[in-house]
């Protein structure tokens, strides 16, 4: 772990599912503190790509480095990276048999060996940050979707990661709950968290992204700062996608 190295450095990444090539030679660099939004049609490989960064998917070719550490077959380096890279999922994936507080303290206590009292204090701080400290004693099944996703963000933050990955965090939410989750994400972005977000929320992208990346068919088609990306897209495919997403 070298915090002066680029947060994420991906070179020529390939990924296959059987004969199907999901990722074709992806190159991507994310600096520390940078906010990157990835968009693209479904099946374009954007989720697959960010799931490679914490090795929920194994890649078949190319290199991934996180803060200079190469992700290879060395299980130790994978564990090390996962401690520093948090992830928020589309389906929340909270642990249903544990309370909100236990969800938040489990990993710090088991992985970082944080004493319980300290882990709980940290958890309460992040639950306050996502504005649901009063739900700490409840089980995930008793919360709304928006509340669950905010707990999931707090859970990831409790490991005090250097990078947060978001995999379509608002896609499974009812419309009226999207804003409360995006608000939390905006706050995190403003505080300087390194973020890679796969999302279709173009308003969010315009507001906080340093760079927007458009993927299609397993390739990065275009990447640009949000102003340029939304107002003057270079590629025909990007223009088509934007007209479909923003067009109504």
């Amino acid at each position, binding site marked *: 772990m070298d915090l002066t190295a680029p947060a994420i450095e991906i070179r020529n990444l390939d990924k296959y599912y059987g004969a199907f090539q999901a990722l074709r030679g992806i190159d991507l660099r994310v600096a520390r503190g940078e906010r990157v939004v990835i968009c693209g049609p479904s099946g374009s490989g954007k989720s697959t790509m960010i799931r490679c960064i914490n090795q929920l998917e194994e890649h078949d070719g190319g290199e991934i480095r996180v803060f200079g550490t190469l992700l290879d077959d060395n299980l130790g380096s994978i*564990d090390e990276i*996962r401690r520093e890279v*948090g992830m928020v999922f589309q389906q929340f*994936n909270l642990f249903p*048999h544990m*309370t909100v507080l236990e969800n938040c303290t489990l990993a710090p206590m088991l992985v970082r060996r944080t004493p319980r009292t300290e882990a709980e204090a940290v958890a309460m701080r992040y639950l306050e940050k996502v504005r649901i400290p009063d739900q700490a004693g409840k089980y995930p099944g008793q919360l709304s979707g928006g509340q669950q996703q905010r707990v999931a963000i707090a859970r990831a933050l409790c490991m005090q990661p250097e990078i947060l990955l978001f995999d379509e965090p608002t896609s499974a939410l009812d419309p009226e709950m999207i804003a409360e989750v995006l608000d939390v994400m905006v706050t995190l972005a403003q505080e300087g968290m390194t973020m890679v977000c796969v999302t279709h929320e173009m308003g969010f992208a315009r507001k906080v992204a340093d760079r927007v990346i458009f993927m299609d068919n397993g390739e990065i088609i275009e990447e640009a700062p949000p102003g340029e990306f939304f107002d003057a897209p270079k590629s025909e495919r990007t223009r088509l996608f934007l007209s479909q997403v923003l067009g109504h």
Partner: protein
Amino acid sequence: MTAIPLARQGRLRRLRKDFFGSTASTMMTLASVAVILALLRWVLNWAVLNATFSASATQAVCAERSGACWAVIAARWRVILFGIYPYEEQWRSALACAVVVVVIVLSCLPRFWSFGRLALTWGFGAAIFYILMRGGVLGLVRVNEQQWGGLPLTLFIFVATGVIGMPLAIVLALMRRSELPVVARVTGWIIDTIRSLPLLSILFTCAIVLPFMLPGFLVGEKLYRVVFGIALFFAAYQAEIIRGGFQGVPRGQEEAAKALGLPYWPRMARIVLPQAFRLALPATINQFVIAFMETSLVVVVGFVELLAAGNTAYHTGEWKFAYIEVYAFVAAIYFAFVFGLSRYGAYLEARMSAGQRKE
């Protein structure tokens, strides 16, 4: 009509609707009630009203009345409960049963659910049971495993099956879903092989064939070989039950645990297994009930467990007529244990889903 509270009125209406809602259902209700009453009367007559309770009654006395002759239990209960265990030492058997029951009850209490406490309880329990039953130390006369019998033997086989079989089942289930294809496939074969063998053939193999195949120092007591065989059989079935539980746990659960940096064992122990167990609980309780009943099969390799001890109890010229009473007594003992097990299963299910229901 005036003073019936509303809730009761609702219940009455519900009752009328459910049982007397149509002509057909009224007839079914009346017929069922008639059958149940007839059965109850018959059982009551036999077991209580026309029965002989006097402990000193002989066959002749019993024969004068048409009901059960409970004198057989008074005369033969020690044979039923303790089998061929030496008569003078049977207090040790009784104490050993008590120890097993206490250990089981303690480990069912949530406050004992930590690795340290369970290990301590079970370690102590096993040691006391073994010393009591086998003796040879502390001035207790040595009693060989061949002479163990009745309830303590049944409980020993059942508990040992669970204690050995359950961890084995978990390991097999985890190996079966290993990411290494070789491990997964070989485990699958092992499970399928054990499942395709009848339990009886496994018992015979362990009791009779193994001693010829194993080197001398590995042979050990027949009882332990047999228990190992039953545990293996139990584990093969239970592993599949746990695998079913695994399949009900969403993949995202394990991914979330991975993303938080949890290594394999904590991931399994804290996230995947607890959820899989919850899903597998009804089938698991079922498997334990079956395991309890199947302990009676060890009679074929020469062990006098509870049911076999019951057989021995009435197989004397004097009591040959009273086999129904003996079987009723044995059945009541099985029922007490299995019913307790079922109720405990229901309690666990309620407890596990308690906090997680939507309010």
